[in-house]
């Protein structure tokens, strides 16, 4: 019974990683870059929810929508100002810029909102759900996180596979030049990708902080790295892969915390990543790209 509890909270944590990983994987798939500032967008989203919901008592849904809007704007701005001028630069330059943006966001947050931890109130005000005759009590946050993530995932998959804009995104991801010649506004599609990824990061931030309620300017860093790992784990560029990778990562992390060692749990997570990549270098659902020689 206890195992079930750890498993469910692992899936919940994993769902948050999955939401963040979606941002990494979509941006990688479409813009062919690793946006290491993505984790810090979560932190900004967290602060937005904190200032509106925790301090001013807005309705939680309104607060999350506000945070999504701010993060969407932030994501588009980052892309426009920092990454777009480097569109044809070597990928290393873009990567370093992304790390720079990450530091910029963290330090701006420290300057603006100070580095003292803020204690976050959960946006979910439902009672814990007890199952198996009260033997196991699961916090409502856990369930809500899983449900919200699954819904977002389904909508996103449907959007990408079935709509005109989704097709355009896939086209840009496969062959930017050819897509442009089909009349697709590549810059617009890349902006949209950043917008979607960043708004999901805001949701992830609100959900993450509801379960782990300490908010500091570096809150986004570790979940950001883990979500990146999840994206690679599942096969970077693949949306279902990001989801699977995220959930598995959360479960592995939680179970190793519970049964092996709290201190070693992160080490175990990364060890699993290394093993998976040794066996399957493209990740679990990654597509093998044949290189023409």
């Amino acid at each position, binding site marked *: 019974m206890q195992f079930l509890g750890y498993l469910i909270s692992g899936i919940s944590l994993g769902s948050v990683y999955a939401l963040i990983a979606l941002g990494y994987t979509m941006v990688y798939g479409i813009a062919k870059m690793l946006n290491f500032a993505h984790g810090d967008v979560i932190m900004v989203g967290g602060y937005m929810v904190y200032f509106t919901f925790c301090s001013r008592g807005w309705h939680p849904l309104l607060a999350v929508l506000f945070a999504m809007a701010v993060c969407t704007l932030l994501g588009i701005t980052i892309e426009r100002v920092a990454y777009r001028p480097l569109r044809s630069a070597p990928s290393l330059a873009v990567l370093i810029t992304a790390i720079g943006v990450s530091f910029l966001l963290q330090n701006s947050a420290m300057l603006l909102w100070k580095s003292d931890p803020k204690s976050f109130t959960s946006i979910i005000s439902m009672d814990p759900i007890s199952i198996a005759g009260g033997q196991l009590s699961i916090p409502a946050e856990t369930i809500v996180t899983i449900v919200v993530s699954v819904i977002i995932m389904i909508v996103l998959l449907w959007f990408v596979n079935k*709509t*005109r804009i989704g*097709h*355009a995104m896939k086209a840009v991801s496969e062959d930017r*030049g*050819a897509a442009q*010649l089909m009349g697709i506004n590549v810059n617009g599609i890349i902006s949209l990708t950043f917008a979607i990824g960043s708004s999901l990061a805001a949701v992830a931030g609100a959900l993450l902080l509801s379960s782990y309620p300490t908010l500091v300017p570096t809150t986004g860093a570790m979940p950001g790295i883990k979500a990146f790992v999840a994206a690679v784990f599942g096969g970077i560029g693949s949306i279902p892969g990001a989801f699977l990778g995220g959930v598995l990562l959360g479960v592995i992390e939680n179970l190793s915390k519970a049964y092996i060692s709290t201190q070693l749990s992160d080490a175990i997570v990364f060890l699993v990543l290394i093993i998976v990549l040794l066996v399957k270098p493209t990740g679990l659902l990654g597509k093998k790209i044949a290189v023409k020689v």
Partner: protein
Amino acid sequence: MALLEVTNLGISFGGLQAVSGFRLSVESGHLYGLIGPNGAGKTTAFNMLTGMYVPDEGNITLDGVDITGKTPEFISKAGIARTFQNIRLFKRMSVLDNVKVGMHNKVTYGMWHGIFRDGVFRSREKEMDQKAMELLDVFGIADKADYVASQLPYGEQRKLEICRALASEPKLLLLDEPAAGMNPNETLELRETVRKVRDDFGIAILLIEHDMKFVMGICEEITVLEYGKIIAHGDPETVSNDPRVIAAYLGGDDD
């Protein structure tokens, strides 16, 4: 006024003048050929026409609209579509979806209609499916609409690429070596396809090709490039008898 009017087009890469003084006049419903030895600047000319490269000098006007140095998506909307020397389909997408991407700017609905899956979305998607199937039918590959593009045999991938280009309802279609890598039967079939496209769609076609039999048999007007400059222009007969063209292809005395 001609559909496409190109005057004095030129571009250089570093110290290399890849194309200079390129001019062309294209009328609707006609077939034009652009030939020349390897490295003559044919594909470079195509790249300038489609906005992949920004020309250093010269002017391109399509249907009265100045498209010189505009972005590829602007030019695509203005009415030029192309295929590539090495096939560049969206390989992991279905045959049908490839064609639908080609319609990107022709059938539109806002993102919110897409997200909420309302009536607008459904009717537009249906319209797109229908149009795409009709196009695929013209090329005889409608029965393979659900295949992943990379599963198609080579000749059909070429057809699909033309199909995708036509989906954007262009006024001018550029074909970059459509017969490359095809066997004689496929080439023959392609010739019929290209003719059919011109007749059924009434658009202008400009093609680059190395297969001389193909070009001479299909094009009404041919422009010959060598070292980035036009060395001959005219109907197939004039061009094939031009001593400079023969020299360029077979090697001759420079005089």
